């Protein structure tokens, strides 16, 4: 079955997968390094953004695996700096999205990315149930997932007195519609 979301067909290499998912041909990158130079978190990453592209270009299973296990793909903030400056207009943030999805599918996400992934999951839980973000639930769900129970709780009273924390969630009417969208989207994306 072919699908515009490219979910089913297994592509041989990660570069193929990325092309399939995003339409970006990594071979186009000529390794000028401008993306890595402008990336705000390049110095925190285990592999720089341009190196990620180089590794994909080589189409070797060991390198593909290393990319999917990297901390880098989870540190990318989608700030769009690299894409804005790339002379070849390579949509690197979109490549990162596709790599993260594949890393989750293969269950090889970097251990240090645990907190980040837990946060994203808690965030989506709130949206699935309320339709909107319920900040208190988000923080609590995240704390439970990560066991960072104290960090941030100290902040809550300060926000509360300033009227910045909603004690009650905003519930939309279309909550069952939201649940259906989540289900149907998940079926597509795996």
């Amino acid at each position, binding site marked *: 079955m072919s699908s*515009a*979301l490219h*979910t089913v067909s297994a592509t041989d290499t990660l570069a193929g997968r990325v092309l399939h*998912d995003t339409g970006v041909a990594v071979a186009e990158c000529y390794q000028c390094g401008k993306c890595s130079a402008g990336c*705000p*978190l390049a110095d*925190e990453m285990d592999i720089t953004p341009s190196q990620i592209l180089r590794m994909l270009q080589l189409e070797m299973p060991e390198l593909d695996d290393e990319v999917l296990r990297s901390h880098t793909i989870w540190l990318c*903030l*989608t*700030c*769009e*700096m690299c*894409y*804005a400056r790339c002379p070849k*207009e390579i*949509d690197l*943030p979109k490549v990162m*999205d*596709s790599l*993260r*999805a594949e890393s989750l599918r293969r269950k090889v996400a970097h251990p240090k990315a645990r*907190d*980040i992934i*837990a*946060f*994203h*999951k808690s*965030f*989506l839980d*709130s*949206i699935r149930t309320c*339709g*909107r*973000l319920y*900040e208190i639930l988000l*923080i609590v769900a*995240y704390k439970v997932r990560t066991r960072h129970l104290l960090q*941030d709780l100290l*902040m809550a009273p*300060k*926000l509360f007195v*300033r*009227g*910045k*924390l*909603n004690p009650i969630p*905003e519930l*939309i*009417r*279309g909550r069952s*519609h*939201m649940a*259906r*969208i*989540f289900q*149907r*989207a*998940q079926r*597509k*994306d795996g």
Partner: protein
Amino acid sequence: MTMKMGFYPGCSLKGSSREFNESLCAVMDKLGVELEEVPDWNCCGATAAHNLNHALSLSLPARILALAEGAGMQEIAVPCSACYSRLVMTRHELQENEALKAEIADIIEMDLALNAVPINVIQALDRALEGASLESLVVAPLAYKVACYYGCLMVRPPKVLRFDQPEDPMTMDRMMERVGAEPIDWAFKVECCGAGFSVSRTDLVAKLCKPIVTDAVKRGAEALIVACPMCQSNLDMRRCAIKGMSEAEAHIPVLYITQAIGLALGIDRKDLGLQRHLVKVALPRRAVVGA
């Protein structure tokens, strides 16, 4: 005469950034614009959705766009930069790819014509000011040196957004000039503040925010002006997480552009939600330099 404008507030404006909502509504009200919320809108999914699930990251904004067009809205004002980016990028991606558009329409089980256009807060203010002169409405010129901070998602990716110059945008600066402020020339206008890592990697947010605050202060800014709830909360709520700040760096306030304009238009501080900030907004009234 009141003018109606479609409005997608997004979750932050209903929660931790409610002062952005308050100040936007107060200013729009003053300009005779009625903001009409997209009926039964849902969260756009922000970074979480596109980090974890591509189809979902398109479906959540698509539901919003479909609801807006169902309500007959031609334009939707989207003050949160992250929401704005998700809505614009989704619309763009679906416009470019008919098959994908059909799949997403099928997931959300709604018609999707993509004829409602998301606009950011600056464009919304421009629209509200059409035919009026902002200068003539100013009763208390904002006589301060300000550093306008655009962050990432208001200007990038330029190929899709086509809004202002991506490396040195000026739209906010010009608007600040019109209400009597003196925007400074500085180096961190479009650097990233760390966005979605506010809770999960506060350490990285502090690391990215420090040079932003430091450069603004070093060049003489008395306030930072922002147009995004995440930039605001990272620079304001997370200030205490930044180590080794000078007195001036610890105290420079972060105002939403709507709060800054509201002050100049003579709107009460409380109606602009200035009391809700963690870094106190203590801008003493000051006569315009040279006036």
